[in-house]
């Protein structure tokens, strides 16, 4: 039963967007503004999911998607740390070598496994010199009848993000977008952020059934004040068919450093006294000269 569910590979994608002040960046935009970032997602599903009889051959199936409609991803690549011969299979429908929003690029890789192995597949794609990266994990249990741990039912993104604050800090508003690119509605969706507690209630439950359906995008926001460079992680949990899906995303907001302080003063005082004394001496000299001339 669980294997069937795994093969459905319920996918949960959380993306993080931030609204805030952007300065000194090649990507600076008028503040405050919504910043769009490239998002790439990958799933990795091994076949078979387990090798109870011992060592054997496993084929990983990867699906890569571009989750940002506005731009196509270039230089898309997939690597797997346990399988070296990742090969593109299909999906570039228009043959332009760019991963478009409506395309799913599929890759495969076959390898021999002798022990229970967790693999990490990494997809990268580039937009305007910003590289988005995403990992997918899959575990194949070898030599045991125990059910394998959950395979990659969760998607998460890694993108470059232009966002910074001046030295005195400022307010940042995060916007979280949660969607379910799988085939099973998700229930009990919970979003938490380790550095921002006032997360809003969701928007986007269009049919108001409190389930994250596959055609819905739920949006949450959270505002906080940052005074130093901060890395915060947002977590989302949800359930489908009794299984829990978890995802997280991390973003670093840079706060500029102040300039060095001026912590020396006596020389300043000395200069001031000197200037005063010179002024007084000059005045006295002029006064004497003036008086002498007056006497004459």
């Amino acid at each position, binding site marked *: 039963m669980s294997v069937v569910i795994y093969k459905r590979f319920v996918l949960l994608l*959380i993306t*993080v967007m931030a609204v805030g002040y952007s300065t*000194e*960046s*090649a990507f600076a935009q008028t503040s405050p503004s919504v910043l769009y970032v490239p998002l790439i997602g990958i799933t990795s599903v091994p076949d078979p999911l387990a090798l109870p009889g011992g060592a054997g051959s496993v084929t990983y199936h990867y699906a890569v998607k571009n989750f940002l409609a506005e731009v196509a991803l270039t230089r898309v690549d997939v690597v797997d740390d346990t399988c070296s011969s990742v090969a593109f299979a299909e999906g570039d429908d228009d043959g332009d070598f760019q991963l478009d929003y409506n395309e799913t690029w599929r890759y495969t890789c076959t390898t021999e496994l002798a022990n229970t192995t*967790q693999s990490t597949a990494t997809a990268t794609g580039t937009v305007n010199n*910003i590289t988005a990266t*995403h*990992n997918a994990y899959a*575990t194949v249990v070898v030599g045991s009848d125990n059910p394998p*741990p*959950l395979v990659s039912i*969760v998607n*998460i*993104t*890694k*993108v*470059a*993000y*232009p*966002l*910074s604050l*001046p*030295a*005195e800090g400022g307010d940042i508003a995060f916007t979280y977008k949660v969607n379910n690119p799988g085939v099973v509605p998700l229930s009990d969706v919970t979003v938490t952020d380790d550095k921002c507690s006032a997360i809003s209630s969701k928007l986007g439950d269009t049919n108001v059934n409190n389930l994250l359906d596959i055609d819905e995008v739920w949006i949450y926001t959270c505002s906080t004040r940052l*005074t*130093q*460079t901060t890395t915060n992680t947002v977590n989302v949990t949800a359930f489908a068919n009794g299984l*829990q899906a*978890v*995802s*997280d*995303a*991390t*973003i*670093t907001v*840079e706060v500029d*450093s*102040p*300039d*060095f*302080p*001026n*912590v*020396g*003063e*006596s*020389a*300043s*005082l*000395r*200069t001031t*006294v*000197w200037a005063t*004394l010179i002024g007084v*001496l000059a005045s*006295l000299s002029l*006064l*004497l000269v003036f*008086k002498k001339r007056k006497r004459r």
Partner: protein
Amino acid sequence: MSRLITARIARALSLVLVVLGPLPVNATTLSFSNSLPGGLQLLSGSFVVLNQREEVNQPAFQPGQPTRLTIPALNVNAAVQDVGVAPGGDMDAPSNSVDVGWYRLGSHPGEPGSAVIAGHFDGKEGEPGVFNNLDKLQPGNKIHVKDEKGVTITFVVRESRRYNPDADAADVFGSSDGKAHLNLITCAGAWDTTQESYSHRLIVFTDREDERGHL
């Protein structure tokens, strides 16, 4: 009569001149360039295998506000003010020459990151400031910071560096190694009459020592 008064004033002034010493001169300005990686921030994520997730529930160290700084090697024992950013974007200086100023918008001493404490090189009356001898610190010297909870955290000097006042201070106010550092700042070099500032900033970089005396 007026000649006598003038002569006395002149004598008094010349005595003051002798006490004050010669006029300060400008120093050659060194330039530093500390480049930063383009202002890009990363949004990253990771996958969690639910049944294998390991929760590490170590209580996070929550240092209080620093109240006292002691440097035995320099006989420094100073109260700590908290300071922010001056209107021009500089870190604020402590309000007198005997206290030190902790940059409250940065890390607390003892928590991961680089806490910064500044102290005057000299004061308005010409007296030596609390960090007048900061350049005498050597690698291995210890610095202690006591916080409002009475906890004392020890740091060990790693190195000293001089910066141009306008240099990028990012590596002084921030660190990415996940460890706790304390960086001390004071003025150094010669007085620049144009800038009304010393020609350099002296930074002493330190690393936190744990309870067992390890870095």
